[in-house]
Structures are given as C-alpha cells and as structure tokens.
C-alpha cells in the first residue's frame, strides 16, 4: 500500500531519504518537499530523480513562492518527514511544523533532536489526541534502532541503565588521539577536513549533541521530564594527549560516555577511563550503546551514528512501521 510523505529539509538527511526513494521500491510517494528557501507540492507524486537533479543544479527543490509552512499546512500527505537542522535551544521552526502536521491528523517522523528534546510530552500527547504516530528513531544514534528496541522490543523489561557513545565526532577525535598520538587540536582539524566535524565544532566537542540525545532517551524511554540543564555535561575539548597516554598505561583509553541510571537520578555525560577491550570502545565515528535490563540482561548495540543513508535508514524504518500499523487507513 503506498504511503504519501512530505519532506521538510533537503540537507544531508533529507537527501539520504530522497536517495533511498529513488533507488528502492519502498511504496513511498513524495507529494511535498521543502528546503529553507523553496517548496513543491504535487498530490500525484513528485519524481524524485528530477528533483535531485534540480536541487543539485539550482540549489532549490521547488518554487520560492512555496514555503515549508505552506507544504506542511496545505500539502496532501499521510506522514510529515521533518528533517531540517536541529536547533537545540528553540527547537524551531521544526516544532511548529510538527505541531501543525499532528493537528491536521498527519503522522510525523523526524530526525530533528530539538522538538523531541524540548517538547516530547506535548507532541506525543498531541499525536495521541489526533490518533496518529510521532516517531523519531533518527534522533538518537543514527542507524542504530535503539528507540524502537527500547520502546517496543524490550517492552516487558525494566531498563535499569544505559551507557553509550552517542557522538561520532568526539569518538573519532578520541580514537585518533589514541591511535596516532595526535593532540586534541590535530585530531579535531583532521575530523573537520574529513567532514566529521562542523566548521563550528562546539556543539559536538562540548558534549551538547550527546547530552541532547540523553534527554531524548530519558524522556521517551523512562518518561522523565528532564532538560539539558539536568545533565552533568563535560565535553572532550580540554583533554590532553598525555591523559590518553596515562590511561594506556593500564591498558585503557578515554571515551566520551553518556550515562542514565534513573534509580540513582544519574544523568551524566563525561570523558571516562575505560578498558580498551570494553564493548563501548568502538573505533572512528561509530556509536555504541549498552543497556542493562532485568529480563534480557545486558544488550550491546554498535553502528553508524550519523551519515546521510544511515540516518535515512532510521527514517524509512519509522515510515514503514507507521504504514504497517495503520494499514487499511488512508
């Protein structure tokens, strides 16, 4: 059964989604698309390959007269796919788009951390009132289906604790400092040159990005109502190469670890000394998560935490599971 989507945002994540639609027969029809400067709507379906060409040539996905908000509020679609860049402080304009779509009775799938970290309760209530789904697998650990696993597959478990490497940029820098003896500055410059780090890496290296993911996990998996201020955050920007050498003396290394232990009210992100053979010590820009549960015991997940197709994988998974759940509906 075909499902119609409107896509907001054609950056790395949005392009990944379009790439999948053009390559695979998913049964997903694109009926609306918008970037920050233009938009396009066609209830009959927008041909994806010509859209990708146009975006490449002109930098625009549609017409300047059609805004993202217009696509959200007037487009004909079943699911809004919100893939615009994260604003962790205001959550806008994404939150407004999501609110509008849910209020219209449309499902929402997002990769945008801002709205989920700041307004999860409100948005999930709004979805429930309108009888639709609000899913956000792509917001945490990219390709790793951690939210689906914790919320659905491990439904009968008490999740006692979660420990994770949740920022690929930081993990890349720490890996290179350990492997090649690079200084923090050298490793950061290398990460920038390879496109693993933004021109302004503050959001990653100071731990904000990973901490926002902890907020999302705490509020959705454990139904807490914490904010970024609740989390004890230490980034990696003050680490020295000597510190890594000192850890190596005891066959250990240093990794940026997020930690949630709800019973102890512990929400912390900090660089930690960790044995080299520990399952959370993954290489390069990978992410890894360990959850401690009462029935299933300890579970370990590792995989790509970012990337165009990897994040699209999480989004497409959300779309298809909504279609599955509401099969026979519109």
């Amino acid at each position, binding site marked *: 059964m075909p499902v119609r989507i409107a896509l907001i945002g054609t950056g790395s994540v949005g392009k990944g989604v379009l790439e999948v639609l053009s390559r695979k027969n998913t049964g997903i029809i694109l009926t609306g698309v918008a970037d920050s400067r233009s938009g396009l709507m066609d209830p009959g379906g927008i041909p994806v390959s010509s859209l990708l060409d146009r975006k490449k040539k002109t930098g625009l996905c549609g017409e300047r007269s059609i805004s993202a908000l217009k696509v959200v509020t007037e487009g004909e679609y079943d699911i809004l796919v919100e893939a615009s860049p994260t604003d962790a402080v205001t959550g806008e304009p994404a939150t407004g788009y999501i609110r509008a779509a849910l209020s219209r009775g449309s499902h929402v799938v997002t990769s945008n951390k801002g709205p989920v970290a700041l307004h999860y309760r409100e948005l999930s209530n709004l979805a429930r009132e309108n009888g639709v789904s609000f899913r956000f697998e792509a917001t945490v650990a990219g390709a790793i289906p951690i939210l689906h696993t914790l919320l659905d597959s491990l439904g009968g478990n008490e999740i006692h*604790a979660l*420990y994770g490497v949740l920022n690929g940029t930081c993990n890349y820098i720490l890996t290179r400092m350990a492997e090649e003896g690079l200084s923090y500055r050298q490793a950061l410059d290398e990460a920038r040159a390879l496109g693993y780090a933004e021109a302004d890496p503050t959001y990653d290296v100071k731990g904000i990005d990973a901490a926002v993911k902890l907020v999302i996990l705490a509020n959705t998996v454990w139904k807490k109502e914490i904010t970024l201020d609740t989390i004890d955050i*230490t980034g990696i920007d*003050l*680490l*020295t190469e*000597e*510190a890594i*050498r*000192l*850890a190596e*003396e*005891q066959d*250990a290394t*240093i*990794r940026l*670890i997020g*930690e949630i232990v709800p019973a102890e009210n512990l929400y912390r992100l*900090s*660089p*930690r*000394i*960790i044995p080299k053979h*520990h399952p*959370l010590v993954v290489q390069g820009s990978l992410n890894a998560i360990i959850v*401690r549960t009462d029935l299933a015991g300890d579970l370990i997940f590792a995989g790509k935490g970012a990337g165009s197709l990897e994040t699209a994988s999480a989004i497409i998974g959300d779309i298809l599971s909504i279609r599955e759940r509401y099969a026979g509906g519109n």
Partner: protein
Amino acid sequence: MQVSMKLEIRDSPGQLVTALMPISDMGGNIKTVIHEHDYASDLGSLSVEVVLEIPEERLDGLMQLFRERGITVIRFGEERMHYQQSVILIGHLVHTDLGDTVDQIDMTGYAEVTRMSLAMPAIDERSSAKFTIKALSREDMDKAIGILREVSRKKNILMIEPLEF
C-alpha cells in the same frame, strides 16, 4: 582487616583442610585460596596463598593456632586497602598545590593515593596526572572519589573517572 598469607603444608591428602581450619575456627572469612601445585618440592611440602578477612584482635590467636598445628606461615601481609581505582586529572595541577590535592584523600584515613604519574608538557600548559587510589571498601572509594571531584571543581581541574558498572 584483610590479610594475605602464604602457608607451607605437607603434600599429603587432607592437609589443605587442616591448614584452613584454624581460620574458620577463629571466625575468619576466607576470600580466596591459591593452591600452588608448581611449588610442590622434593621436601614433600607445598605452599598455599590465602586471602582472608579477620578481626584484628583475633590475628594473634590465629598465628598461635597455626603454630600449634604445625603449619608454617612463610609470608604475612596486611592488605588494609584492597579497593583500587585510577583517575586522571588535567589542569594546572602543580600551581593548584598538588600536595594538597593528594592530602585531601590521604587525610581521610580510609583512602590514600598510592601512586601518581605526572606529565607536564611545558610550563604554563596544563599537566595531566594519574592517581591510583586505594580504599578500605567500595563505599570508602566512592567517598574518596567524591572528595576528589569536589577538590577538582574548586581548583578548576578536569577529573576523568573510570567507567564502572
């Protein structure tokens, strides 16, 4: 208190039990027994390493019992602090009185810094140090780490703790 001792026993059946019996007779709690078969010598004896917990005031009585039963204590060592953890500190460690930072732990009586490695790349640059801390119990270790966390905060030192779970 926790002690470790090396006992010499005759290499014949039942001797290990004979050697360990005095420990339980004195109300001691055996933590581990390392049976060193390799040491079986021509003399027909072998040695056993035992780690045990026993109230300090009963230790003399235990030694007396060993003597009475013909068991030789080859080595005896007190392991007062057997919980060990390492932390790494980064900052202006020397200028913020490194001695005082160490003292804050040593003064507790239940934990102490037993080893320190210090790397100072250049004057004016931040240095990095690894502290190996020993403590009487897990709870004491947590308290000691808590103190160090507080000291680090005051002195603007970045403390990297081990991931323990």
